[in-house]
């Protein structure tokens, strides 16, 4: 990263004030920050405070019309911690996040390494393909997925059918049972997550000094050993950042699940995001939804702190 303005003298003297009056603090940054500060307080800080506040009330559908709600203390939280639906969706979220992160990281690392071996046409083409997949708005890609996996005319069912391995799959309904729904959603998330991971890792992998790699090869190390011992060592900080980001994003996935399975069949693909949304905006139990959001936010806060710490360590200068 570039260094910042090194000293006070160069950048924070406002209109030259007469020396005799002593040094006044420069108020310029304050003026510069005020507009953004006001907006952020209005659209982020206040809502978060209000979120915590409503989680201690019985705010619900009635409240939306009458404006009346009561303070109920920790009741929403005790209800939540005693609800098996919450624990189930938490477990689903953790397991599914792990599956998505592992899948996209492994493939992403492979593609990043493949890119280091490519030159010219294929390198360019692979990069463009990655960007195309990455750029697809997730609403559009979820709809494309529904069409790919459509029972009856979907090309995926046809392809599986041609393999003659799984029997007649032509009318397989992917949203019909949890394992199939998870598979379809997992494929979509991994498909869209790999480009970011592959391109970010590749930017770091191209920086690995070739002398190290050549030296290791001269010592008779195989390609895999060279990768494991040397490349991975250089990639560690980037890998850590990308992994934490992936965990945070995958934990929060909503659109794709909502548009493909609506959290169904039953509640089987209802991860925390879907569970919270249904509680707050289908049942309009706003207070209960707020409590789930507070709990989720607290879980993510630990990860976020870890992310920012790693970012600082990796040389990002604040």
């Amino acid at each position, binding site marked *: 990263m570039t260094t910042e303005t090194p000293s006070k003298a160069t950048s924070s003297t406002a209109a030259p004030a007469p020396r005799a009056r002593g040094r006044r603090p420069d108020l310029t940054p304050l003026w510069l920050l005020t507009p953004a500060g006001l907006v952020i307080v209005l659209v982020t800080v206040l809502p978060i405070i209000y979120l915590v506040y409503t989680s201690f009330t019985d705010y619900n559908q009635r409240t939306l019309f009458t*404006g009346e709600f009561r303070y109920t203390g920790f009741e929403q939280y005790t209800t939540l911690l005693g609800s098996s639906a919450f624990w189930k969706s938490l477990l689903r979220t953790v397991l599914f996040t792990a599956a998505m992160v592992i899948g996209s990281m492994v493939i992403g690392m492979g593609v990043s390494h493949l890119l280091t071996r490519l030159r010219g046409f294929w390198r360019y083409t692979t990069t463009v393909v990655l960007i195309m997949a990455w750029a697809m708005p997730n609403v559009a890609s979820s709809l494309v997925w529904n069409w790919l996996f459509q029972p009856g005319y979907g090309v995926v069912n046809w392809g599986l059918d041609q393999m003659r391995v799984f029997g007649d799959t032509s009318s397989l309904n992917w949203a019909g049972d949890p394992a199939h729904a998870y598979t379809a959603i997992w494929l979509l998330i991994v498909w869209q997550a790999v480009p*970011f991971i592959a391109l970010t890792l590749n930017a770091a992998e191209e920086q690995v000094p070739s002398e190290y790699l050549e030296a290791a090869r001269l010592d008779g190390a195989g390609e895999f050993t060279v990768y494991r011992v040397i490349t991975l060592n250089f990639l560690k900080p980037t890998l850590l950042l990308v992994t934490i980001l992936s965990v*945070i994003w995958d934990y929060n996935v909503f659109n794709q699940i909502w548009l493909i399975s609506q959290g169904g069949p039953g509640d089987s693909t209802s991860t925390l995001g879907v569970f919270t949304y249904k509680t707050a905006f289908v049942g309009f139990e706003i207070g209960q939804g707020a409590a789930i959001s507070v709990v989720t936010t607290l879980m993510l806060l630990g990860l976020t702190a870890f*992310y920012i710490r790693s970012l600082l360590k990796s040389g990002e200068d604040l």
Partner: protein
Amino acid sequence: MSRSRWKANTLAAIFCLVWIFPVYWMINSAFKPRADLLTTTPKFLPTHPTLDNFVTAVTQENFLTNLRNSVIVVAATVVLSIAVGIFAAAALSRFRFAGRRAILVVILAVQMLPGTALLIPMFALFNTANLLGTYYGLILAYLATTLPFSIWVMRGFFVAIPVEIEEAARIDGAGTWRILFSVLFPLVAPGVIATSIFAFIAAWNDYLVAYTFMQDQSHYTLPVWLASFTNPTSGTDYGGQMAASVLFALPVVVFFLIIQRNLVSGMSAGAVKG
């Protein structure tokens, strides 16, 4: 052509075919007439290309209203993010003051909040303030995401400007504000363009907030229109929906290709979630 090069190229070819297939299938389906879409053996090439699906898409009753809603809300979000964010980005990059790091940490942390953490309280607050179903409510909700990352991304561009340029202007007698407007802002113009594109994509792609807040067909934005693209008589019209998806995704893909150099840095602040 060495053997290992040949192996890498083959792998790349297989990967590209697999990875581009969903995009290809979207485009291919968009140009096929209905009879060619619903076949038991899929047609891999649009042998009877037609624009019918696109016509169906843009003549849907809510398309123009929803397009207008999208354009207004997205434009306002982008302009406000840049106009408000550029001053904050300048402050956080060219000045040292107490609390600067804390502000940067908050800006990063906001990006990591689960979507519902802001959606729920905003919904309740906007309900009270009668902002549900209005452009203002939607724009405010988008600013919660786009303003912090706009500040973060633009700050990166400011930091890259050498101090010497600033010092030279100061020696020439320019004051702080003059330096800001005549020296620094013109120099971060490319950064402003990249940041605008990030903000555009984030607001253009949003489905959840618009779907929750607008509550009415005529107030929806394009992503919601896209998701509810069904023909009441014959179920989902996949051809029409794929054509609509192509139209909706096109500006985003073009923009992505324009800013690919800045993609990775913008991502670290969660500008475009993978």
